[in-house]
């Protein structure tokens, strides 16, 4: 038989273990639900697993001559020189947003060809290209 002191200690240990495990599960569950995956237009075209209405980031180059601005929105095409995707966005764009330059858009996919962006991400440095874009373009421009 365990004496009371050891028993109490054991109880406390079990309680702490349960607490730590619950919190860890909670953290990772929330993390999983709120992760933004990054895709290139070709990945979106190819993949069957990408869920519409999930928040995500897509990146590539702004296609030359594709930017259109009307009263409400800005429309442009993100391309990785293999596939393209139309992006619709409302709001201000970062200073380095321009045709033929790299861009990352954050938002939701409406269908495989149409993306509703909530945010256009800026890189403050002109010579800097987000590593994701660099990598996804590397495979296509050769």
């Amino acid at each position: 038989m365990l004496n009371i002191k050891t028993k109490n200690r054991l109880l406390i240990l079990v309680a702490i273990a349960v607490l730590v495990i619950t919190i860890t599960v909670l953290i990772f569950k929330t993390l999983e639900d709120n992760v933004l995956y990054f895709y290139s237009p070709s990945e979106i075209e190819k993949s069957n697993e990408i869920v519409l209405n999930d928040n995500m980031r897509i990146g590539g180059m702004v296609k030359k001559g594709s930017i259109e601005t009307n009263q409400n929105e800005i429309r442009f095409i993100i391309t990785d020189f293999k596939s393209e995707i139309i992006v619709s966005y409302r709001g201000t764009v970062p200073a380095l947003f321009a045709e033929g330059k790299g861009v990352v858009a954050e938002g939701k996919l409406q269908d495989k060809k149409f993306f509703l962006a909530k945010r256009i991400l800026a890189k403050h440095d002109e010579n800097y290209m987000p590593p994701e874009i660099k990598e996804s373009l590397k495979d296509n421009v050769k």
Partner: protein
Amino acid sequence: MLSNFGVIFSSIALITSFILIYFSFLELKISDSKIPKKIYNFSLAQLIFSLLSFLILLIGYVFSDFSMINVYENSHTTKPLFYKISGTWGNHEGSLLLWTNILVIFSFLFLILTKNKNKNFKILTLIFQNFLIATFFIFLLTNSNPFSPIFPIPNEGMGLNPILQDPALAVHPPLLYVGFVGSSIYFSAALAALISKVEAKSLATTIKPWVSVSWFFQTLGILVGSIWAYYELGWGGYWFWDPVENSSLMPWFLMTALLHSVLVLERRIGLYSWVIILSILTFTMTVIGTFLVRSGILNSVHTFANDPSRGLFILTFLTLMVFSSVFIFFKYAPSEKKTYRIFSKEFFILINNWFMVFFLAVVLIGTLYPVFLDTLVGEKISVGPPYYNFILAPFLIPLLFLMTSGPRHKWVVSELKKIFNVILFLSIFLFLIIFFIIQENNFLIGLILLFSIYLVVQTIFDFYENFKNKSVNFSRIISHLGFGLLIFFISINHIFSTENNFNIRTGEEKDTKDYIIKFEKLTTMSTTNYKSIVGNFKIINKKKLNTKNLKPEIRFYNQPQTITYEASIRSNFFSDTYLTMSNISDTDVFNIKFEKKPFMNFIWFSVLLISFGGLLNFFSRKKQI
């Protein structure tokens, strides 16, 4: 010319730290109770040469000496003097020199100011500090030399990134670095205390002022950075859970935990090992933060030119540091048996520490997860703000509650205070009034509001009660009050912020729910370092029928040629009106983000209150001695 002097001065400072380490080791064996003059002299010499090397770089910037690559790459003759000076630490090499200088200053101050009688403890702290100083000087001279010469000497510099040409960002790094580097002192002191077996109370009184000071500066640094992000990034927010922001917040959690547990160490001679672990962790976290920011493995919205070799150096240093600290800890840590009664002050402080460690874990996991996933699986992800908000927000409720009741309990033994008292009913009453006005039906936000009101009301009441007994703990009152207000105003701000995004031509107007936004005309402006297009907007409030003029700018900086968008913000007492405009490749249509952000000034003010409490904590110590 200057370049050589810079290298010579910092090399001398490096050599003095080796000399100091050597003499200090010799001194450990001598049982004289006084620290010899020569150690003071060498420390002073180290301080002087270190400051001189910084002065050299400063002079290089002020007089635009482009014979140094660093000045050439980050400065320009037309830049205003203020930004020439702040440019000194506006880049990797310069900021590292600043970091090292603060390290040297703090070591020297520790040596001359600490009244601790234990000689070996002071000497050992000095040894650890000098190991750190030497490492950073070596890093500086071999990898990130701010004095590297360039030949032929260019006539003109490349200029400072315009988004860094900003008063808030000029003071942000020094503030944050004082906070970061301040933690090195209690890191070294904790290790030294283990080896020289310093008593709990004596360790507590020695490190407490350093904890308060570094915490104060860290809080201010975070505040200034956040204000900068608010008006410069043009996203209308003030905290984005960006990895770089997280890097400054993570050490803050640990400092806050330490700030509280050091009280237990001082008053109850308890948590000795825990305080030491926290001290080691805090500095480790600041180095990790520096590593994450400088190595460029994190994809951040803030720019930092990056270089893997820097990361490798910091990572190696970090590993060595952690392993040797862990080794020292396990070799020397005393066993401690102390039980704490539930509902005593120390019990609540312990819970506070658990919360801080939990917050740290959440932020650390969110920050590092993308890095791990990328290296392990090659999957590119980012973790968005919802992760942090979802997890952290519910835990604010118990934290707020414990912050309210914890401080009212006594040390050692205390009976459980009645929870259902007048204050709680008063808070609920206040809450219901506010709830009725704002009509928010989110349960979670409602609870957070309720408990933040409770904290504020109770803290004010505590102040009144203590004031009658003439024993006010001002630092606690002010910081806790500030925190209650901060959470309250953040929640209100979250509920009532409105945002409108649209495109508009000059002369047109946009009709939104509460406002009419008139784009009257475009004007141009020009100063020495930039030209700008200014949009003249008239905002008409439909209900109150008043108008405000807002003038957002698109700036074209000449050196380096960069475009920035400047938000126009009008603050009145209760609310900020925020407008940014952008323009794509010279079309006549402008993209507008129009926001109404209530209580922004109150949020800044609350953080100021919080940090002010830390300052008071520092000064209240003086009185006790």
